[in-house]
């Protein structure tokens, strides 16, 4: 490894960290503006043109705010917790491919399964155990929250912390099952390879419909996002684990949460929606290369793939905000029920389906559609037999006062 490679990696890390934190900042604005529009309001529009500098204002304010450590808090842990929360959220991005811009100037290498001629600048590193890395890192995230809840020496924080550990641990399993099914489908732990295998129309959602549904629910719970935001649950726990955190430390928690939200959206795109693929991408790459040579071709290919990826992620973020605007929050015990009694069995079932079908039917297209059918059927059955209360209209109308017979 020469010094240029190292320099490029350093620059990559720097740029991606910066990009991700900026994305976090603007995600907050995106969320606030979008929520406002969904609720017939305007949203932040005063700071800078059209409210564009709102995140900057928030950042400046939080940065210059007094830094309080509660007297009875466990000081080292209290200070460590935000860092513990935010670092895993940031390092997930090391393995995520945003697109494919080959610095060896050959766009075709992006589809090459053995990746010999690939130097993708839009992914920091293509670990061959990338998915294991992601799973490992996301599970560290829970420590930040739990420790914060414990160290604050506040009962609400503690309840939030306990909720978080219970919630995250129980959804980790379902999440793992869903991701493992994906791994099985593509036979690799490498993110890049999963993406490159989804070339064309056959995106991951087709073989892994069930896996996608489980992943979405489990991942939303994993990043404690509405309707699974029980860890903060402002109305119940006044902020949960972050009740005692102010100024930048609070901002770090906020940041961790939103960056993780972007990360799981990105992962969803990678696993189930073809990553940076979109139909016609290779035709574009071919035409531009023919027209303007391989360098321009690679660059255009890279930029377009990046754009496609970001667009897909944005759609997921939109849905996340939209759900937050529309649905009530789940209750803690129902959340546990959902995780252990529904998602985990379904996840295991999906794993079994995937294994059996792939082994029996090696043909890619056929087994994808069979798995799709099985997934849809299982989902339909699951929805059919669940015991969500049905709306019962108990309201009757009476024209005059009327008392139950037992009441005088």
């Amino acid at each position: 490894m020469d010094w240029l490679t190292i320099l490029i990696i350093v620059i990559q890390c720097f740029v991606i960290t910066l990009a991700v934190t900026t994305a976090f900042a603007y995600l907050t604005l995106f969320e606030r503006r979008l929520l406002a529009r969904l609720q017939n309001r305007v949203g932040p529009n005063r700071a800078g043109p059209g409210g564009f500098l709102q995140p900057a204002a928030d950042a400046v304010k939080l940065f210059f705010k007094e830094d309080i450590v509660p007297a009875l808090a466990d000081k080292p842990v209290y200070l460590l917790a935000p860092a513990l929360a935010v670092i895993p959220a940031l390092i997930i991005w090391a393995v995520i491919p945003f697109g494919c811009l080959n610095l060896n100037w050959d766009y075709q290498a992006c589809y090459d399964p053995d990746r010999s001629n690939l130097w993708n600048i839009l992914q920091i590193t293509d670990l061959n155990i990338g998915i294991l890395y992601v799973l490992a890192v996301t599970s560290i995230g829970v420590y930040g929250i739990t420790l914060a809840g414990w160290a604050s020496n506040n009962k609400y924080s503690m309840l939030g912390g306990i909720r978080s550990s219970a919630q995250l641990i129980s959804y980790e399993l379902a999440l793992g099952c869903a991701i493992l099914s994906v791994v099985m489908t593509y036979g690799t732990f490498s993110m890049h390879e999963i993406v490159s295998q989804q070339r064309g129309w056959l995106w991951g959602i087709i073989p892994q419909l069930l896996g996608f549904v489980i992943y979405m629910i489990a991942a939303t719970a994993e990043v404690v996002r509405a309707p699974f935001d029980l860890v903060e649950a402002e109305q119940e726990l006044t902020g949960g684990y972050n009740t005692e955190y102010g100024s930048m430390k609070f901002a770090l928690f906020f940041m961790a949460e939103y960056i993780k939200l972007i990360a799981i959206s990105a992962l969803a795109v990678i696993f189930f929606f073809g990553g940076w693929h979109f139909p016609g991408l290779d035709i574009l790459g071919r035409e531009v290369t023919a027209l303007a040579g391989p360098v321009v071709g690679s660059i255009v290919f890279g930029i377009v793939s990046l754009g496609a990826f970001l667009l897909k992620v944005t759609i997921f973020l939109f849905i996340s905000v939209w759900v937050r605007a529309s649905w009530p929050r789940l209750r803690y015990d129902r959340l546990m029920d959902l995780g252990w009694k529904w998602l985990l069995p379904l996840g295991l079932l999906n794993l079994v389906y995937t294994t059996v079908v792939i082994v029996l039917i090696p043909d890619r297209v056929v087994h994808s559609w069979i798995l799709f059918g099985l997934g849809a059927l299982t989902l339909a059955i699951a929805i059919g037999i669940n015991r969500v209360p049905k709306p019962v209209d108990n309201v009757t109308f009476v024209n005059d006062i009327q008392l139950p017979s037992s009441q005088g």
Partner: protein
Amino acid sequence: MTEPITVPTPQQIIEPAISGRTETMVLNMGPHHPSTHGVLRLVLELDGEVVVNLAPDVGYLHTGIEKTMESKTYQKAVVLTDRMDYLAPLSNNLCYALAVEKLLEVEIPERAQIARVLLTELQRISSHLVWLGTHALDLAAMSVFLYAFREREQILDIFELVSGARMMTSYFRIGGLAYDLPADFLPTVEQFLAIMPSRIDEYEDLLTANPLWLERTVGVGVIDAQAAIALGLTGANLRATGVAYDVRKAMPYSGYETYSFEIPIGKNGDIYDRYRVRIAEMRQSVKIAQQAAERLRELGPGPVVTPNRKVAPPPKREITESMESLIHHFKLWTEGFKPPRGDAYVSIESPRGILGCYVVSDGSPKPWRVHFRAPSFINLQSLAHMAKGRLVADLVALIASLDPVLGEVDR
């Protein structure tokens, strides 16, 4: 009933915990907590997240309204009633005015009666909208809150049109109304009443059949009819248990007996039934308000205040013409009127339940004693009964479904 109904006090929960006799955790919820609807403090005894016992601690908004009213004349005390149940000031005005009118035995012109019914029904809708919004917000369905407040804004605009103030209207005075209804009142109200049902449908789209909403509300916070009556639960909370008792039907006032409307009742007495009953009540209120608006249109202009000059000041144009009117005017505004000795109790159906007003007169121009039977205050007693054994999250939903207004609880 197997277990006797008890209403614990905070001390009864805190003391064993301090002395270390319990294994449970004591959690103070409030007085500053997002979902206690103001400054209610709850002392919770928790086993994990399960509520073992709880005691509301009220008084953080004790305002001394009853004492202050004793130092004002009857007419001036009207403005204090506004600020008691601040989500339904007109209901409070009405209750107090009816009680004093009962003492005085004055007759109210029909136009004023109809206007009172119309405006209190609008007030009921607006109050239920706040309940709906905050209830949904407590379960994190935040859009409903904003939609509900948007419609409430329209009702407040009607109040501003009528009385010049959005919330604290002080519009119902003893003897009638403060001023006549403005010319564009009826069109504005009818326009609002025409759109309101579709807006209620919209809230229902978001909540009524939503599985997440159902999971949070069905079977939670159940109370049976017997316990509800014993604990003095009133209003929609009582009707959700299946007891069809509504003061507007049982002991009609302001001519409610002449309107056709129905009492919605529930069956299970859980949060969901309370929700459905209140939604149905909003629709009934729209119905009553429509009838009242129709009547106002038929009735045409007329007096809105009692002609009794001993109670209500004369129209202002008279005071420049008649010496007698001028004397009445001065006497009423400086000294006030003097009801005969005696006491009167009147109750009305406020959005929260039975609002009662007990007025004692000693023959002087100031009330000797005014007491309000505040429905929220009494409804709060049943909280412990309903919340035992449930989760903290259920408690949040439960408080919201009881719809307490702390201004009224503490007075």
